[in-house]
């Protein structure tokens, strides 16, 4: 073999193939690991060009920002509730007895160069992370991308959303300020409300009755190590499945159930997505620079007997807070036992139910549509009115619960009696899904009825024959009109099993 005799630089250069150093590196690697074929396939992997595919990327890149800024924060943050006397550069707090967790977070904001920016970027990245996961999930739902064969990735994604929310709550708690401390107190009471085991669970999580001394160190290790590791593992699995099953795509010119049309991994997608990573981090840095978030020094340290008036959790907890506010005070006492339904239902059973429905949704839908076929082409939301209406109804419910978390703010702002605002929100929460469902359904039907909606009209070309006759012939279609492939015949309440799309990407519908 030639490689046995190559030992001078010159000889190496001479034996180099047409692809130079890169070629050599590939040779060496391939002899050991067999990377050539798979590598080329990977370079040629096709990514569909549609803006909605960027939502998951926002989630991924804000997580990258979270990890980088988070590592910076760990270098200065001290997860301890030992009391120290604050003598830092923020004078209004000078001389106060505060926990080390709080004092180190304040120092991080004022004494560490770049520390305030890192804290604010970390917090903004968290809010964007959770937000982009939610929007990403909505696009998967409304376009039907969760259907067979992708149910497992839907399940992983739902778990990631839960973990992101949980980790956000844990991180929010770490600075031990007055606002987040109140949040921990509420979380403890929610755990207490669980029948039978609540008090045991509460004592085990907190290492005793609230506040205990272990909760900050425990939340810390969960927040910086355990939950992020699980998130990283699941993100890896999520992306692996994505590559293995390939992307879905919207129907269109040349697109079928059996192919993917778009841009290749290398170099086009690589350039665009790396650029996008920079833009996402850049925007987060700009937010961190110009939009103050979580000014813990203004809230002051947590003391169990004090409370700030602006008790508001991060936005992704809003729907729970809203539910707790509007749920009536029905408690159950009997046989010497208490079931605090006023907490259990809105704060435990409601989110439990919502997330469980999300988990089993693909199965529910398969049951109702009896559609067991593989789906690689996406639906337009209007194609499936009932499905879309169910999604919008759920979002309406969540949105109303979110608004209900500011009943007091609304009452103050509009100078309305709190009681009226509360009742208005109760009614809105209950009726909003029932209003949203039929409206959405109707809109979907209307959109379907717009035959050729989004399609360019073809002109008639009028010519005069030699005999002076006028003849109108349809002009040739626009050659680059992608929409012409999208026949707007209303699609399917469900798609018949085994039906193959025609090569144009138009699906055959059974009505």
């Amino acid at each position: 073999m030639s490689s046995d005799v190559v030992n001078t630089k010159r000889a190496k250069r001479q034996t180099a193939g047409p692809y130079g150093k890169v070629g050599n590196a590939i040779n060496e690697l391939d002899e050991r690991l067999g990377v050539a074929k798979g590598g080329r396939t990977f370079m040629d992997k096709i990514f569909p060009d549609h803006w909605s595919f960027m939502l998951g990327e926002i989630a991924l890149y804000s997580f990258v920002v979270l990890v980088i800024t988070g590592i910076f924060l760990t270098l200065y943050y001290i997860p301890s509730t030992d009391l120290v006397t604050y003598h830092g550069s923020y004078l209004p707090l000078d001389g106060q007895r505060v926990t080390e967790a709080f004092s180190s977070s304040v120092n991080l904001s004022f004494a560490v160069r770049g520390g305030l920016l890192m804290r604010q970027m970390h917090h903004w990245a968290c809010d964007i992370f959770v937000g982009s996961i939610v929007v990403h999930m909505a696009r998967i739902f409304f376009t039907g991308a969760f259907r067979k064969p992708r149910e497992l990735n839907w399940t992983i994604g739902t778990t990631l959303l839960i973990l992101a929310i949980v980790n956000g709550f844990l991180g929010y708690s770490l600075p031990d300020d007055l606002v987040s401390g109140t949040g921990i107190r509420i979380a403890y009471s929610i755990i207490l409300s669980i029948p039978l085991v609540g008090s045991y669970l509460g004592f085990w999580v907190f290492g005793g009755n609230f506040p205990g001394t272990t909760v900050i160190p425990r939340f810390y290790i969960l927040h910086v190590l355990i939950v992020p590791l699980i998130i990283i593992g699941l993100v890896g699995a999520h992306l692996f499945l994505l590559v293995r099953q390939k992307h879905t795509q919207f129907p269109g010119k040349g697109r079928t159930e059996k192919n993917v049309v778009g841009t290749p991994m290398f170099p086009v997608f690589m350039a665009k997505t790396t650029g996008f990573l920079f833009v996402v981090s850049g925007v987060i840095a700009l937010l961190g620079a110009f939009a103050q978030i979580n000014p813990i020094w203004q809230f002051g340290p947590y003391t169990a007997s004090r409370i700030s008036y602006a008790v508001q959790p991060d936005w992704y907890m809003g729907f729970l807070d809203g539910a707790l506010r509007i749920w009536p005070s029905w408690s159950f006492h009997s046989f010497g036992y208490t079931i605090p339904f006023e907490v259990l239902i809105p704060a435990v059973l409601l989110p439990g139910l919502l997330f469980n429905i999300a988990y089993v949704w693909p199965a529910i839908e398969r049951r109702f549509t009896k559609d067991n076929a593989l789906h690689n082409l996406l639906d337009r939301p209007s194609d499936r009115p009932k499905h879309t209406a169910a999604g919008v109804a759920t979002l309406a419910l969540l949105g109303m619960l979110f608004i209900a978390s500011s009943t007091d703010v609304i009452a103050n702002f509009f100078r309305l009696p709190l009681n009226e605002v509360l009742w208005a929100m109760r009614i809105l929460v209950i009726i909003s899904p029932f209003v949203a469902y039929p409206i959405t359904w109707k809109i979907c039907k209307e959109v379907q009825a717009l035959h050729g909606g989004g399609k360019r009209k073809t002109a008639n070309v009028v010519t005069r024959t030699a005999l002076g006759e006028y003849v109108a012939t349809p002009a040739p279609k626009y050659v680059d009109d992608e929409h012409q492939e999208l026949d707007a015949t209303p699609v399917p309440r469900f798609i018949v099993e085994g039906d193959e799309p025609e090569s144009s990407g138009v699906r055959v519908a059974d009505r």
Partner: protein
Amino acid sequence: MSDHDELRTPVSLQGIAADDPHLAPAAHNPQIVERVIAVTFVLGLLLVAGFGACYWVNAKPWTLGATMGGGLTFLGIGLIAWGKYLMPRGPFVEERHELANSEDDRNALAAAIVERGGGVVKRRKMLAGLLGGGLGIFGVVAMFPLLRSLGPLPKGTLFSTDWKKGTYLVDITGRRVHQGDLAIGSIVTVYPAGLENTDRGQAVDQTVLIRISNENFTTQKGRETWGPAGYLAYSKLCTHLGCPVGLYEQELQLLVCPCHQSMFDVTNGAVPQFGPAPRPLPQLPLYIDADGYLRSQDGYDQPVGPGFWERGASLS
């Protein structure tokens, strides 16, 4: 097919010719695009360098974020434009290979598991049972110390506070509250003497003391002696989720919880008037001793704070 049409038709990258028009840049005018991208890159480069400079001279925090954020955004926009306009225009197509294998392949796998593996277990049912039992027991036993060591058992902790017969009411500085201390309509948070600066004193025993008149005040039947000289003491832990009930509406004589706006009627045994709290705030019976100091007649007659399973219906 016209040229244009052909261009719009996706091609595969496998074995594509080097001069295939799909590999040409998407921009009609690459030179101009290149110049624009160069400008964004220069701006980005200057800004990230500025970030270094701002850090070096310890400039204001917002300048750090502005330079870094602006720089990354410009570099990112330039790179996206490079990919979008100066790289192969496509569109390209990739075939989707069916993931599912043939039925024979599936049966072969199933056979390996069911026949080869399952057979081994079936023939040695006892061994499998013993191993499974051992692992199961280990699992349970391992869970036990793990869970059990996380914290103590609740026992009676949730039922009691540190208020006893004769406990002095003190404020956060540890000063005893004297009969003449509060004007009518004023309010102070009190703790059992000696516990004002402890976690337990603050988290569990915290109590609001309100003076609503000069006369002895009865908030409910059976509590005739609890409010000497118009002093009323209620647990400060909201019965909804345990937030400190930190607001006093003087005119309406309501205690308000800022968390979810539960409102408790001070004059009527702190029965909730509004909001999600299910129970009144427990009232602490007071007396004024011979020296004029406020003390508790006894502890609370029920658990304070939010509800829990063992709390007991009879107590509420």
